[in-house]
């Protein structure tokens, strides 16, 4: 408060009185004087540094800067000898001064499907019309916490909703008013994938829904902007108005950064992206976005692993994250990706310096750190001409520091904002750090003062005994106290004078008597070892693909492999071939035969072993970040391909069960679900590389209890009965047909992603995989398809398929079913394990699927159950997890059997592949060995080694006084059809 008063006193009111405002508190007067800071080291920019220069400011701006500057006569000169001047820092992702949305308390979980607002976009989470300025109130108390750590300007916004509207650029100038400090009231537009906490509209419930919503929104804005709508939409109008602003996307994760960038690219927008701190894990693609990044500094604390039992709950992934995350800024810098830092998600601004220093300790060059706080954020906001440097004409926002700002012991003295001085630490305060002989009551103690000049720390020793001691130092007075070996307290205070380095003053003895003490300075301050530690390089564990247990340091490559003398299950007419060789070359099955020449192939002795095509799972939900978009009863616009999680450990586990390909299906929350992703389980690869090339187009449909919402308390969404389910399909297909007709007629039409997808179905370009149970609904679905002249491709689950197998055959639909599931809900009362066998005998193409991460890794056994239930031959049974699902997925030309020319997706089993005793020893996809049982053993050992190394490092961190967090385990839920 006193400082603030001082500042106001110094500048008077003139600078901030608007020229044309009447003055009633006195007479009008102006202060056009200059202020010069001389003899300082000046960082005009992070790379333009004047070692001994002058900074001249006037009216809140930089007037001149240089090694020598002619000072006008009306200049107040401040000698800054030995001090360093930096541009003040900028945070582009702040909440400062802007009232934030708070989640309302209470309220049920009943879903609300429609928008609340009128005259805005159809989805309440799209709020481009919001402005931070309308919720802005300057808060100098908060501003001070930011100025104290070096910030001068922040861009603040409402952190709520998918489109959040525009931000406000504020100088943290406590002396002025909003007329001065608001630099821009339409500064950047903010977006995210997260819904508003204030709005209850259900859609979107998923990440893929949010993505689809954004795509549709951009398309609608274009259409609206061209004057095609006959109603008013204030959201779309605002979105179009904000189009020229900088667009900042809150991704908070490497994968989401890529997702946002893709949406931006499709709409001619280059987002600036708020990162998640894990960008280093996929740095090449992050670089490929060409985006500027805003990086968080909230590096995780070490886990407290001192309890070895609890330590088991921390997985290698999270341990590594603690170890690797502080190197994220360094990795981005190395890759030439521009980034700024933000205080967002940091517990307190007071942590800021510690975290930046940590990034530097992990290899971030100081110049890059300074850029991340000054020129880059200014450039992100398009404000380089105004802030972020100390070039002439820029705002006079700068820091005066005791030295290198990225040195632990450096003190920020002052943070000037818009030419207004804010004292952080009194720079006239004398440096009293050093070693002293302290004489108290006839005894001499060893006293060391260290730490920061303004916040010194004290250590008092009697011989080698460390005594409990305290120090405080402010306004030229230093007070300290200690307890002697008997616990008796001695208290002292002394005025610090310029004249002498010694301290002397009043001493109060334990008995209350007043006397005097002296402390004779014996040595200058030197940084202690502990502080030096922060400068030593740290061991950072190598990133693996993916970056968790069982990831590999480099991606495996396709090999030329010759399997010798195997029992080969072809899944073709050829059946089972004994003592047969299979040559794998260039990712394909090059040759099948006997006594094939070895050439340069790696030879694998497969005598007594069984070689099969890779298992194909028609129905999975592993490797997905979301499964259902449950916000609408039709969500054809969403894509599982948008949310592939290539870091799911289940991918590896399923490779260990011989699975090579799987259809990642949308869930069964709605009659019309989302589009599928057909994946090859290429562990370590990016989601894009896992999606099968030239993927056939699929979509999930669903029938029955799940879409009727029968098994939970939900009574508001249509349909609630199987009768209603038919009506949903009839209505949507009719509309899609009309949409397609209109589109093809050349008449202007509103692009509707959902209708586009449904039209693809009618036009035979996209296949339906339909979740189904009872015969009535199965029959109904086929009849709906007949009406619109298309064929249902697959019924998945299809547990009563055996009751209508003849009709299914006639329609031409295939079946992907469970081997033996039933009794878990009412509609599976008549589910029987003989289902697959009956349908197969009638002539339906049948696959056994999983819908379950556990069952998926034993699909070979699930196929074997059809031998028990219904007496299938082993050959036919094996086809149910290889060539049959390949046929259902329209990829049987490429995979599903062992045939020359097909993809080398192969499994080597140690036993009959359908034996309960069989283990997969090697699993290949396109000639690349993605699972090898011997390598798996080596990885187990490596994981244990790395874990114990990281645990040691964390124990050391704790012992060194580092902050820790309790052990915990991030765990994925078992995803099934019903997962939200």
């Amino acid at each position, binding site marked *: 408060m006193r400082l603030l008063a001082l500042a106001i006193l110094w500048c008077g009111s003139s600078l901030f009185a608007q020229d044309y405002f009447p003055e009633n508190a006195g007479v009008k007067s102006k202060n056009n004087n200059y202020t010069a800071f001389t003899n300082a080291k000046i960082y005009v920019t992070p790379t333009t540094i004047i070692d001994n220069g002058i900074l001249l400011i006037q009216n809140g701006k930089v007037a001149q800067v240089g090694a020598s500057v002619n000072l006008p006569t009306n200049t107040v000169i401040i000698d800054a000898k030995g001090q360093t001047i930096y541009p003040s820092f900028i945070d582009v992702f702040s909440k400062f001064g802007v009232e934030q949305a708070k989640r309302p308390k209470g309220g049920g*979980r009943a879903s609300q499907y429609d928008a609340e607002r009128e005259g805005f976009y159809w989805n309440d989470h799209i709020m481009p019309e919001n402005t931070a300025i309308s919720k802005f109130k300057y808060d100098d108390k908060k501003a001070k916490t930011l100025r104290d750590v070096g910030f001068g300007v922040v861009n603040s916004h409402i952190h709520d909703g998918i489109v959040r509207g525009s931000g406000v650029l504020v100088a943290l100038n406590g002396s002025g008013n909003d007329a001065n400090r608001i630099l821009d009231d339409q500064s950047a537009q903010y977006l995210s994938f997260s819904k508003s906490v204030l709005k209850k509209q259900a859609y979107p419930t998923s990440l893929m829904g949010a993505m689809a919503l954004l795509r549709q929104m951009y398309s609608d804005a274009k259409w609206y902007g061209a004057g095609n709508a006959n109603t008013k939409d204030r959201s779309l109008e605002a979105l179009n108005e904000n189009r020229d602003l900088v667009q900042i996307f809150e991704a908070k994760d490497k994968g989401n950064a890529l997702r946002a960038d893709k949406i931006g690219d499709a709409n001619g927008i280059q987002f600036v992206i708020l990162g998640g701190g894990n960008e280093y894990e996929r740095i090449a693609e992050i670089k490929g976005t060409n985006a500027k990044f805003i990086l968080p500094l909230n590096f995780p604390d070490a886990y407290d692993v001192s309890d070895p*039992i*609890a330590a*088991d*709950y921390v*997985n*290698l*992934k999270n341990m590594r994250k603690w170890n690797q995350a502080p190197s994220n800024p360094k990795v981005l810098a190395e890759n030439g990706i521009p980034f700024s830092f933000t205080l967002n998600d940091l517990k307190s601004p007071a942590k800021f310096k510690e975290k930046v220093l940590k990034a530097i300790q992990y290899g971030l060059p100081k110049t890059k750190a300074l850029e991340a706080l000054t020129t880059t954020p200014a450039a992100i906001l398009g404000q380089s001409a105004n802030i972020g440097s100390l070039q002439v004409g820029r705002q006079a926002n700068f820091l005066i520091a005791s030295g290198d700002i990225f040195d632990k012991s450096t003190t920020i003295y002052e943070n000037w904002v818009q030419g207004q001085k804010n004292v952080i630490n009194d720079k006239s305060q004398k440096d009293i750090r050093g070693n002293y002989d302290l004489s108290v009551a006839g005894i001499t103690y060893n006293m060391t003062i260290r730490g920061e000049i303004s916040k010194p720390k004290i250590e008092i020793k009697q011989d080698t005994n460390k005594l409990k001691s305290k120090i405080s130092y402010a306004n030229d007075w230093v007070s300290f106290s200690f307890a002697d070996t008997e616990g008796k307290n001695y208290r002292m205070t002394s005025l610090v004078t310029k004249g002498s380095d010694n301290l002397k003053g009043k001493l109060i003895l334990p008995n209350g008597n007043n006397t005097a003490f002296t402390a004779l300075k014996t040595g200058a301050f030197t940084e202690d070892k502990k502080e030096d530690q922060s400068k030593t390089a740290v061991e950072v564990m190598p990133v693996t693909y993916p970056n*968790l*247990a069982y990831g590999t340091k480099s991606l495996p490559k396709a090999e030329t492999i010759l399997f010798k003398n195997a029992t080969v299950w072809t899944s073709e007419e050829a059946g089972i071939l004994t003592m047969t060789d299979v040559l794998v070359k260039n990712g394909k099955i090059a040759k099948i035969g006997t006594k094939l020449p070895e050439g340069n192939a790696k030879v694998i002795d497969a005598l007594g072993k069984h070689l099969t095509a890779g298992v194909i799972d028609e129905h999975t939900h592993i490797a997905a970040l979301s499964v259902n978009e449950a916000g609408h009863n039709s969500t054809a616009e969403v894509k599982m391909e948008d949310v592939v999680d290539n870091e799911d*450990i289940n991918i590896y586990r399923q490779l*260990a069960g011989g699975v090579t390909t799987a259809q990642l299906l949308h869930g069964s929350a709605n009659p019309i679900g989302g589009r599928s992703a057909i994946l090859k389980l290429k562990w370590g690869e990016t989601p894009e590389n896992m999606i099968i090339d030239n993927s056939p187009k699929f979509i999930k449909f669903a029938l029955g*209890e799940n879409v009727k919402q*029968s098994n939970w308390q939900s*009574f508001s969404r249509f349909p*609630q009965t199987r009768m209603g389910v038919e009506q949903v399909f009839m209505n949507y297909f009719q509309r899609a047909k009309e949409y397609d007709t209109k589109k093809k007629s050349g008449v202007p039409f509103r692009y509707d992603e959902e209708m586009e997808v449904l039209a693809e179905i009618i036009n035979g370009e996209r296949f339906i995989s339909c979740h189904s149970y009872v015969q009535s609904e199965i029959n109904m679905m086929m009849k709906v398809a007949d009406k619109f002249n298309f064929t249902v491709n697959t019924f998945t689950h299809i547990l009563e398929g*055996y009751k209508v*197998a*003849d009709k299914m055959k006639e329609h031409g639909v295939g079946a992907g079913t469970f081997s033996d599931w*039933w*009794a*878990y*809900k*009412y509609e599976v*009362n008549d589910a*029987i394990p*003989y289902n697959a066998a*009956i349908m197969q*005998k*009638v002539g339906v193409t049948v696959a056994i699927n999983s819908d379950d991460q*556990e*069952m998926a*890794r034993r699909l070979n*056994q699930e196929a*074997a*159950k059809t*031998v*028990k*239930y*219904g007496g299938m031959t*082993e050959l036919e049974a094996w086809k149910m997890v290889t060539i049959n699902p390949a046929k259902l997925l329209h990829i049987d030309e490429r995979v599903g059997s062992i045939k020359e020319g097909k993809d080398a997706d192969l499994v080597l089993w140690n*036993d009959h592949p*359908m*034996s*309960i*005793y*069989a*283990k997969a020893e090697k699993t290949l996809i396109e000639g690349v060995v993605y699972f090898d049982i011997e390598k*798996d053993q080596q990885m*187990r050992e490596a*994981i244990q080694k790395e874990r114990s190394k990281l645990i040691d490092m964390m124990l050391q961190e704790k012992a060194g006084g580092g902050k820790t967090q*309790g*052990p*915990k*385990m*991030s*765990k*994925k*839920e*078992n995803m099934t059809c019903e997962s939200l």
Partner: protein
Amino acid sequence: MKKIKHIFLALFLISATSNWAQQTPAGEQTEVITITGATAHIGDGTIIENCTIVFENGKITAIGTGETTQGTIIDASGKHVYPGFIAPVKELGLIEVNAVRASNDADEIGDIIPHVRSLIAYNSESKVVESMRPNGVLIGQVTPKGGRISGTSSIVQFDAWNWEDAAIKVDDGIHLHWPSSFRRGRWWMGEPRGLHPNKDYQKQVEEVTTFLQNAAAYGGGQAKELNPAFAAMQGTFDGRQKLYIYADGEKEIIDGITLAKNAGITQIVLVGGYSGYKVIDFLKENDIPVLVQFTHNVPSFEDDDYDLPYKLPKLLSDAGLLVAIQNGDASNFQTRNLPFYAGQVVGQGLEKEKAVQMLTGNTAKILGIDATHGTLKVGKSATLFISEGDALDMRTNILTHAFIDGRNISLETHQTELWKRYSEKYEGK
């Protein structure tokens, strides 16, 4: 209107269920039966090739090579005979259809309710129970679920007119779900998903130990007013009943067993035991048998070996512990896969007969019914089945006969009937 509809649905279900009753229970064994030429898996780790098994009045009277044949002879040459497999800690007969609340009788209100008894709710006409039999699962421990102490179980055989006839051992044990030191994040309340330290763990442990101490004290005195919960625990102090402690973590296993022992409980069985392989010495010192979680599970931790659930029973058994397999966490219908859970361990290198033991002799020992069940021994109940081949493998687990107390039970089910009905429909075309 909606509500009424749901009531109708429930009523419909109840009537529907009773309309499709189970196969009629077989009558008492009236004549001697002899099985010849079989490979007999005794259930104690041994095997008798070309074995003759004779049983009369529900009991095995002779078993071995070259025993004299009597009565009806079943030629089982090339086939395999096993003791009926036993399914511990299941809600079989308590839940018919998981999602239909009206058909669920497994979880009573209340946290500590040892006095709640499963037997009287056991539906001996359950279609799900009936579907166990064609896979060789003939006995089950019907067990209440939920809460801290969920109630008292009973052991039944799967071919009976009513629960009274079904009972093999009434009120055999009490089921205590030990608190977890880590708990799942309630993501729907804004907590992150995954596991977090359970801050209430110590408090929850206190509640259990206080209850056990009070139950013990109650037994020692002459209480004037009956306390049903305390009274229900008395069998666990005098050894009449077993205490089944469900725990998976290292800490939980050690805490649970130590504190229960300290409270004076004598017969303790560990259920679950995911981390049991890390505390083998402790389990051995305390002589604790383990009803280990079934093998068809994914590992609980990302860093775990992919095959840890597959080999867990072997790890415990190799160390010399008494181990049987249970699938308490799975849906009822899955229990027919019990033989395959055991087969999976064989793939990890366990001897086949040891795997069979984990469904038969060991289980009977752990459940305390080994005097009458679990192995093919003279004097024991003729509860056994004949399979065309290896019963632990899906392809060859094909039953030709099953006997419960010597009664030749039906291997038909609701499912086989539908199979036949629809097969005939298509064949008729």
